[in-house]
């Protein structure tokens, strides 16, 4: 898997939350989980740079859940993971932080997380493909009337 860590959350969230929660529970059966930042659901404020004068302003808010965890295996191995996800679901943030930690440190079960990241990335690329198709199917080349040889013809 070549996907960088910063892209894992987007890929993983292509899967339904219950599936991610179940995977995180399964993979941490023998782990000690320390919450270094409690799972929390709330709001984030979206700051934009305006296109005219490049001044920052707030466009509005969005649901946000965050969590940071540290996993400790019986053999002494440790891993840190964190997640900030656009969802009103603290449990999902906790699961994502766990999956992130497992994959980052190659803890047991990382292959399953990696497979989820890859299949999620594929779903996201399909989504992008559909959006690109909307653009490609509607690309327009306006011409001034009288400047083309056959006015009225569709190219």
């Amino acid at each position: 898997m070549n996907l960088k860590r910063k892209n894992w959350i987007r890929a993983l969230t292509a899967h339904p939350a219950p599936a991610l929660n179940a995977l995180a529970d399964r993979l941490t059966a023998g782990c000690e989980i320390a919450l270094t930042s409690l799972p929390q659901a709330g709001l984030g404020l979206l700051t934009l740079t305006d296109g005219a004068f490049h001044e920052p302003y707030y466009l509005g808010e969005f649901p946000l859940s965050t969590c940071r965890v540290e996993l400790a295996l019986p053999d002494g191995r440790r891993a840190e993971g964190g997640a900030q996800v656009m969802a009103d679901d603290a449990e999902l943030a906790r699961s994502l932080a766990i999956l992130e930690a497992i994959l980052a440190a190659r803890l047991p079960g990382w292959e399953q997380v990696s497979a989820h990241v890859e299949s999620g990335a594929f779903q996201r690329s399909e989504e992008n493909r559909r959006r690109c198709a909307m653009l490609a199917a509607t690309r327009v080349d306006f011409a001034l009337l009288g400047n083309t040889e056959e006015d009225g013809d569709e190219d």
Partner: protein
Amino acid sequence: MSYVAIKGGGCAIAGAAAVTEYLRTEQGLAGGAGGPLQIEAILHQLRHLVDRVVSEGGVYHPQFAALAIKQSLGDTLEAAFALRAWRSTRPRLTATPPLDTSRMRLIRRISSAFKEIPGGQMLGPTQDYALRLLRLELMDESPEAFRAMARTWLESCPEARLPDTFPKVLDALRMEGLLPPITATLGETPFDITREPLIFPVARSAALATMSRAETGSLLAIAYSNMRGYGDVHPTVAELRVGYLPVLLPHPVTGELTEAGEVLMTECEVVAMFEPAVAGGKPVFTIGYGACFGHNEVKAISMAILDRALQKGMQDGPANPSEDPEFVLLHVDGVDSMGFASHYKMPHYVTFQSDLDRLRTTQQKSGDLA
């Protein structure tokens, strides 16, 4: 203004809620045909309604916006109110760094300033060129035809290799020295309209934030007054874009900017009348900016026009209502204005009794004089 505490009416109020629920569900009496409106159906088939509510509610939560539309029976003002009520119960966790909209994953991009723009124009999903005629075939659309429509489009859509992002038209004009310079300074903190009251004069960031969550019709009405002659913005749409903006936040462990999700948004940049040269400079076009959550082009265009009108008003003093920040910004919020209008339905018995007394006294005095 005088209010009076009242008591009683509890049964009637509960009854009113039950009657409203009856109307929402009465289709179920017809037999098997009438099922509840599914949130997914609202999200997809009434997407512009959802877009309007996320925008006017000021929170990008399409699922709860759809729920609010369902419970309010399609009343956008009530739905935006419910969404804002929900947001008021949630803690604010963080703010994103200023995000650059040139990173939007576009589904539509047009310019009325140039035929050809870098990256090209793409109409995307729009009804701009559709006939405004009723499509009567949708009156009795079969589930099979419904499913086939999307499948057919997907199967026939071209494989496209397009860039992930597209350059801004305004950037090209700025490079040619046709636009005013960038005024922003690094580290500037924007005005937060959800935490601070508007005390005039306000920063432009307060005006932009207020208009971003304004009621579409209110914003359009004031912008329209400017278009029709109570103002002289005369805009040209340099670029109108609709797409998904990645929401980036620092990763809790690595600190690297990481995508937490994406928001659908509309952005409009207009070029308006040029201004004479100021000392030592050249004449340049004036510009306006509008943006909102969801796909709502009329709102983004109206906001861009009003942004320019307000800049002019703040610079030279307002010459008409659309250039007056206090007039515009205090009258475009849907929840505020709906609340004020609705409060007139509440008991005003003392106020009106006072009016009656004064009228009778005045009539009596007039009669005595006559």
